[in-house]
């Protein structure tokens, strides 16, 4: 008996489509699915979170109340300035602003749930006058007023839970970051809104907006000193230029005064900072 193996045609067991083409099709498809679902999840999570009663939010934020630092001249001054600002921001009566001073050389300030505003020594040291400080506090109170902290908490929780369910423990973990970009986009809207509410309060407090915008020069110098600055798409805060443009347009539209007398910081302010 004669046996033989005929030559088998090449490539009958493999796909003829170029792998890069498959890769691009699938990747774009998956990114679209992820972005869309993150967007929907973020929207719905944020919407649900905004329905959480403020008193409930305060209960969630109990952790911040416990480590209340002793009252110093500095914290009393910051708190009284915050009280003056918040009185002009049409807050709901149960929204009480608590200012926390953090004596660390970090150029940052943020608002979190329960009306807690954190100000870092590093950023305070750079502020040239009280108007800029009031603007900074007013901006953070703006976040509290629009309930941004609890909303972004809800968004983050919804998105990360959704991504975990969707992607499971697969290796596509890095794609989960695609969802974060969508979430940050909401964050930038929130920043602009707080800027406007903040400037409005500062104008009511001093009768003019002179000096307040110095805050953005400070923020600008911080980000330009930081050579590893992320591109705007990755950054939660819109670039200072874009924010200044928006605010200048607002000032022109409302015809606010830009030539008032700038209020200086208390004489001992730098002493307080250096002692802390």
């Amino acid at each position, binding site marked *: *008996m004669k*046996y033989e*193996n005929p030559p088998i045609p090449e490539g009958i*067991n493999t796909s003829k*489509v170029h*792998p890069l083409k498959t890769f691009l099709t*699938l990747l774009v498809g998956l990114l679209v699915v992820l972005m869309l679902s993150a967007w929907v999840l973020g929207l719905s999570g944020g919407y649900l979170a905004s329905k959480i009663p403020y008193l409930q939010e305060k209960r969630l934020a109990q952790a911040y109340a416990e480590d209340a630092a002793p009252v110093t001249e500095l914290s009393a001054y910051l708190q009284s300035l915050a009280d003056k600002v918040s009185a002009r921001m049409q807050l709901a009566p149960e929204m009480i602003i608590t200012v926390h001073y953090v004596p660390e050389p970090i150029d940052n300030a943020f608002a979190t749930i329960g009306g807690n505003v954190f100000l870092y020594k590093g950023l305070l040291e750079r502020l040239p006058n009280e108007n800029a400080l009031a603007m900074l506090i007013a901006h953070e109170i703006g976040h509290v007023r629009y309930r941004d902290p609890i909303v972004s908490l809800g968004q983050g929780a919804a998105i990360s839970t959704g991504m975990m369910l969707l992607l499971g423990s697969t*290796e596509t973990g890095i794609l989960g970051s695609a969802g*974060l970009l969508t979430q940050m986009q909401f964050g930038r809207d929130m920043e602009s809104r707080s800027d406007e509410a903040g400037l409005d309060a500062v104008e009511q407090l001093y009768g003019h907006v002179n000096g307040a915008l110095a805050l953005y020069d400070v923020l600008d110098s911080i980000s330009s000193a930081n050579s590893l600055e992320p591109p705007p798409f*990755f950054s939660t805060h819109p670039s200072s230029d874009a924010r200044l443009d928006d605010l200048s347009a607002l000032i022109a539209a409302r015809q606010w005064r830009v030539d008032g007398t700038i209020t200086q910081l208390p004489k001992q302010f730098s002493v307080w900072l250096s002692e802390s």
Partner: protein
Amino acid sequence: MSYQILLFLLLLVVGYFVGSYLERKHYRSIKLREAELNKLPAIASKLLPPDAMLFEQRLVMGNVTISVDYFKRFLATLHNFFGGSLTSYETLLDRARREALIRMKVEADELNASLVLNVKYETASIYKGGGSSVGSVEVLAYGTALIPKSAVL
């Protein structure tokens, strides 16, 4: 996060280029050796030829383990999400089966066999428990070599 993305892209690009280079190289070598060994037929039939008493029978086998590159593994993850054929693993299995058969035939050829009967494949993924960190496959080809009694070493 941007470093993570950069590292990921770097791995993808390196995986793609190195992986396709090695694959092309492997295919060239497979085709060459397949042509050389075509003189030795490997048949799936388990029926002995009528003149089987003139032959000695011996088990021959060829074994190979191949891994995919990072790019293909990621592509497979994408496939897992949407379903459909796992095209990125097709060449992996094709190469592994052909390489295993070649190695089996090499063994049979060294024994001066003139035919390999009852050829079978066993395929095993060897990354059980390794999660998604390894994408390797083991293929074993085995059969019964018929060696002319006059040629038995």
